């Protein structure tokens, strides 16, 4: 039969060309599909830090589900518990690496983070630090660390700048403050940062006394009595959530009504447990922290998903930072197109992404692995919930000052 479709162009040619095209495209599409990755999550899921630890676990799990939809990355999360003991960080990291995790996220507590980083460093497995503020995390020469959270000095510096701006707008601002702080890695580091940044920012409030307390303290009555006796009219606290509850309880019991209770770096105001334990006495306290941006495009949907998946829980700073850390890993895995530790490490070094949930500048890590564009949000406990009061462009409420006396509630 004569060729009627033109010279050289036959049905066989068309069919063959189609197969060729399909064959050419298929491998390219397979290469583009992001690989599966096994991520180790190290959190204090039990013990004294169980509140924030479990909150982080929720953030990690939700983050993995979100990343699958957003980045197309199948993330298998393997959880490990430090039991709130810093020394267990290394044990947890070793175990996760042995189980095949090629990237780690953790560990909330600075001590546990440093401990885990030693194992990550030895195995050359990158670790994204979602929360841990001690300066030492990124100042000890670790090459595998990528810290999303700012250092305690950065947190405190930025907090005090916001605090000073806020003071300028207050009628009869506080004159003096006692600093009540945890005596652990994070607490000591933050206290030193407060001492330095307070002078740098020239905050017009006199610090009367620094009062360290043990992280396993069963009773803070003497500590609060000392702070009250120092004559301070406000309280700066560096606490975990359980201590924040104890401190406020003691203020109520001892009839001390600081004009401001402010946590420049720590927990309490942003945690659900704080409100459940303190009820009407929770309102008024301030905290600066990394927090979710209520005006970010995905925030509402993420909160809705969180509330569906975890009824009776809040999306807080802990779960938010953990969620964001998973997105950082997913972004790196997509760019690396590999689940190998070395490739993810190289991709993390090149990270330059807009945060999906948290209030922060673009996420970029410096040569020490520190995120250089982190931002701080000022929260105040109002009507039983944390409300964003600064920066003003994302604020949900304005500051209530001074704190209403406890006995008048």
């Amino acid at each position: 039969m004569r060729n009627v479709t033109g010279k050289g162009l036959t049905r066989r040619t068309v069919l063959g060309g189609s197969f060729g095209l399909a064959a050419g495209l298929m491998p390219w599409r397979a290469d583009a599909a992001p690989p599966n990755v096994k991520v180790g999550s190290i959190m204090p899921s039990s013990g004294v830090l169980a509140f924030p630890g479990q909150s982080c676990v929720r953030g990690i799990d939700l983050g993995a589900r979100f990343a699958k939809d957003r980045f197309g990355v199948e993330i298998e999360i393997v959880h490990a518990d430090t039991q709130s003991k810093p020394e267990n960080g290394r044990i947890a990291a070793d175990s996760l690496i042995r189980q095949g995790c090629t990237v780690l996220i953790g560990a909330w507590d600075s001590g546990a983070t440093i401990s885990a980083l030693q194992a990550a460093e030895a195995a050359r497995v990158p670790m994204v630090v979602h929360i841990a503020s001690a300066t030492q995390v990124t100042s000890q020469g670790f090459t595998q660390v990528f810290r999303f959270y700012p250092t305690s000095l950065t947190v405190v510096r930025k907090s005090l700048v916001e605090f000073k701006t806020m003071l300028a707008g207050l009628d009869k601002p506080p004159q003096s403050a006692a600093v009540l702080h945890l005596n652990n890695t994070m607490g000591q580091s933050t206290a030193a940062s407060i001492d330095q940044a307070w002078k740098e920012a020239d905050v017009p409030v006199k610090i009367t006394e620094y009062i360290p307390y043990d992280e396993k303290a069963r009773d803070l009555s003497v500590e609060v009595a000392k702070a009250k006796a120092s004559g301070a009219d406000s309280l700066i606290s560096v606490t975990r959530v359980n201590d924040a509850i104890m401190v406020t309880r003691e203020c109520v019991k001892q009839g001390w009504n600081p004009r401001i209770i402010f946590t420049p770096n720590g927990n309490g105001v942003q945690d659900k447990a704080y409100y459940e334990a303190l009820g009407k006495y929770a309102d008024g306290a301030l905290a600066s922290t990394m927090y979710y941006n209520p005006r970010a495009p995905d925030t509402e949907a993420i909160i809705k998903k969180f509330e569906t998946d975890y009824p009776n829980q809040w999306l807080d700073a802990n779960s938010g930072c953990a969620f964001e850390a998973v997105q950082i890993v997913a972004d790196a895995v997509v760019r690396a197109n590999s689940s190998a530790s070395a490739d993810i490490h190289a991709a993390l070094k090149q990270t330059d992404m807009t945060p999906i949930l948290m209030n922060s500048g673009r996420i970029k890590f410096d040569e020490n692995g520190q995120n250089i564009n982190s931002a701080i949000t000022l929260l105040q406990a109002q009507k039983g919930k944390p409300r964003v009061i600064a920066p003003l462009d994302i604020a949900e409420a304005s500051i209530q000052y001074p704190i209403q006396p406890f006995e008048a509630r």
Partner: protein
Amino acid sequence: MALLWANVILSGVLMGLVYGLIALGLTIIFGVIRVVNFAHGALVVFGLYVGYFTGLWWGMPTIVAALIAGALMFVLGYCLEILIVKRFVTRPHHVQFIVFIGLSLLFTGVQLISFGPDPRPSVSQLSFETITFGSIRVDLARLQAAGATTVLILALAAFLKYSSFGRFIRAAADNRLGGLIVGIPIPRIYAITFGIGTACAGFSGALISPLFDAQPYLAVDFTLLAFVTVIVGGLGSFVGALIGGLTIGVTEAVAALLIAPSMKTAFSYGLLILVLILRPRGFFGAKGT
């Protein structure tokens, strides 16, 4: 400054009495059965949960919750003695230690499975209440616990001294073999004594629920605290538990005020070492304890 000192000393005294209350069950059991109950802290934690949940669900007053916890824990302690402890009463101390450490781990595991690892802060209004004497404010939850400790110790002392069953218990404590020879029902005495010690642990746990978050991991802290208290006061002595608790409470408070709050636990252990060097049997312990 004088007011600060007065408040701090009073706080130390009340906290010390709370420590004495926590240690009471341990000292009763050791005084009579001569076994060292390393599961004591875990039993106190059971009481804490009773106090927490009865307050959360029914708004029950702490003192009522403590009585309920005491009754429940008496049954638990009685059964525990009959089923497990009695088989180890005459065994070497190291065997007893392992058994009680095992029980402690078992109880903590049960609490973890049942209640989860989260610390559960009290929702009782009592945890915020104080009464005022002049310029001195007194924490009502501590005052209640301190008052209950004093009443409980007096009641137990009276029970041991004046009741016929109390005389049996003292006889069993003094000479187990002699008691058996004269027909005292030692196994029953031991079971009831273990029940009373466990009831004291549960009672104290519920009573301190407005002061401490309920969580399984407190078991170790409470066991250590009880040991420090009874070693300082003297193992097996009610008054010793009271004085030991007071000494530690006041030492911690004064150390926190004078030196540094973060050092107060170190001072209570420092005191323990000092007592072990200077008076190994504690303030009120019998010779050989």
